């Protein structure tokens, strides 16, 4: 079958230092025949400079599959090649090698393009139009039935919270409003797959939360969401699976728990006072004000609590350490460091 063949290819393309084994995700989980996105060895070399063009590699051969119905996070620091990948998928730049299919169709297939939505990074729109006119125009280009168009535009504007600004020219929009308008145009024509490039960047915490809610709603409507971000906590809360990209190379693909599995299994114990029992000196302890925090492996949790009780120290909290993607990411950026140690160090601070 196509997908299993792809997985083999995928394995070959993963860099050697990737320690994550590929997740055994099952196609059967979503009962769809074609994957939403299949990327096969897609790569991009830009040529920069005016006269003597120097090659500049933005993306090493990249392969992965996104199934329909997933929220897929495309993670990586600035300059990793996320936007480049998205632009290739949208047919805005052309790949140097490899290929990709969306909903099983070629990237220049208009039938496919009618079923996807795209929010570019830092979107900018025709600023002489009002939000309503902009969406009407885009709806016409996407081939939305003209009878339903007005109703559809109103619904979407309401959905992203721009109902009151529908008649305002976009040149008067704030950055947050532009981002909302961008999301509105991406979902306007009820696409099956939605691509969002850095949808939360530049938004205030409220705005970020709204975008998160919106993405979850899209998933609930059965849509596939593919979004890129350099802010890992955004992805952590939302994604079914993520791909991690750095300097144009894929560093891992999988569910968040799977990717961070190696970093799990620690607890943070906090107690009042400033004294540290001698038996706990070896553990990573930190005195902050009139409390002490220590991070220990979870199998020692009971011993430590017992010790504290013996010493008559008042226990304040015991919480499992929530390993963030950020920790995973830091480990990826410095591959020669054992990842657990990296996580330990961070947690111990």
């Amino acid at each position: 079958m196509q997908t299993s063949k792809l997985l083999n290819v995928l394995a070959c393309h993963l860099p050697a230092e990737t320690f994550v084994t590929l997740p055994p995700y099952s196609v059967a989980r979503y009962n769809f025949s074609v994957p939403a996105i299949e990327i096969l060895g897609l790569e991009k070399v830009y040529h920069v400079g005016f006269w003597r063009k120097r090659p500049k590699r933005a993306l090493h051969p990249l392969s992965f599959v996104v199934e329909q119905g997933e929220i897929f996070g495309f993670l990586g620091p600035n300059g990793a090649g996320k936007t480049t990948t998205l632009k290739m998928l949208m047919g805005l730049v052309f790949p140097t090698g490899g290929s990709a299919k969306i909903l099983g169709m070629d990237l220049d297939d208009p039938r496919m393009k009618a079923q996807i939505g795209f929010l570019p990074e830092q979107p900018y729109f025709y600023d002489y139009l009002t939000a309503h006119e902009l969406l009407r125009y885009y709806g016409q280009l996407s081939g939305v039935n003209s009878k339903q168009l007005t109703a559809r535009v109103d619904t979407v504007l309401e959905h992203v919270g721009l109902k009151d600004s529908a008649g305002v020219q976009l040149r008067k929009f704030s950055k947050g409003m532009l981002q909302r308008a961008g999301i509105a145009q991406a979902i306007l024509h009820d696409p099956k797959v939605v691509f969002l490039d850095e949808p939360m960047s530049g938004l205030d915490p409220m705005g970020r939360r709204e975008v998160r809610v919106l993405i979850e709603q899209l998933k609930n409507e059965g849509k596939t969401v593919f979004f890129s971000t350099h802010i890992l906590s955004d992805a952590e809360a939302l994604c079914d699976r993520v791909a991690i990209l750095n300097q144009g190379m894929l560093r891992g693909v999988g569910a968040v728990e799977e990717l961070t599995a190696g970093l799990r299994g620690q607890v943070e114990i906090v107690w009042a006072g400033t004294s540290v029992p001698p038996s706990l000196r070896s553990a990573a302890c930190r005195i902050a004000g009139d409390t002490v925090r220590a991070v220990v492996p979870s199998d020692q949790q009971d011993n430590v609590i017992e010790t504290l009780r013996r010493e008559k120290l008042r226990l304040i909290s015991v919480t499992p350490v929530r390993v963030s993607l950020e920790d995973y990411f830091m480990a990826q950026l410095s591959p020669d460091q054992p990842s657990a140690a990296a996580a330990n160090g961070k947690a111990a601070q």
Partner: protein
Amino acid sequence: MSSRIFHIAANTFREAVRDRVLYNLIAFALLLTGAAILVGQISIQIERLVVINLGLTAVALFGVVIAIFIGIGLVSKEIEKRTLYTVLSRPVARWEFIAGKFVGLSGTLVVNASCMAVGVFAALLYVSRQLHGSDAWVLVAIYFIVLQFLITTALALFFSSFSSPLLSAVFTFCLFVAGSFAEDLRGFVGLSHGLQHWMAVIAVYAIPNFSALNIINQVAHGNGVSGQLVFWNTAYALVYIVAVLSGAIVIFEYRNLK
């Protein structure tokens, strides 16, 4: 025409109107009114000559400046500001975008030129109290001027499909000027020899032939042109536009949007 081309064209027209492009008509009206009043006072015989010459020259210059400046904005600005991303990620082929932009701007220019034509006739009527049969040739002259606009727009589109807005404007303007002297340039080339000659011949035939599309002087003197010339000039302009637009499409289809 696919409905997408139509929608892109309509949006282009709307952009031009909202960017107050048609305000140039006010300047044009002022110019013509001033000229009409002035010549009404100074000359007896040549007032019609002056009004037609001045009026049509102004139509041509205003229109060309607009053709170049919005024409450049068409593609360059959309790439620069990345408004194209959300258009091309829809079921819109790149050639449809080029075609739609061309149609939209052409429409803008035709509307603009029609308003100015009305102005020219109003001024003519004012200075000579009546219209003559030969004034119909003024319409033909304006029609030829509109053909020049369309060619200029296509060229502006072509250049902006691969170079920066400023360079595109410069290139297009140069070609407009060169095109106005196309016949003389072909004459110059006739005097050269050898390999140089052939390279020059190719260059000179690539320049749009605006010499044949400029009949202002003739018309101002009440002379017309043959119907054949109108027909073949139209054919030439259309074929030239197709050539330039297909060139633009080929380049644009290969272009990586930054």
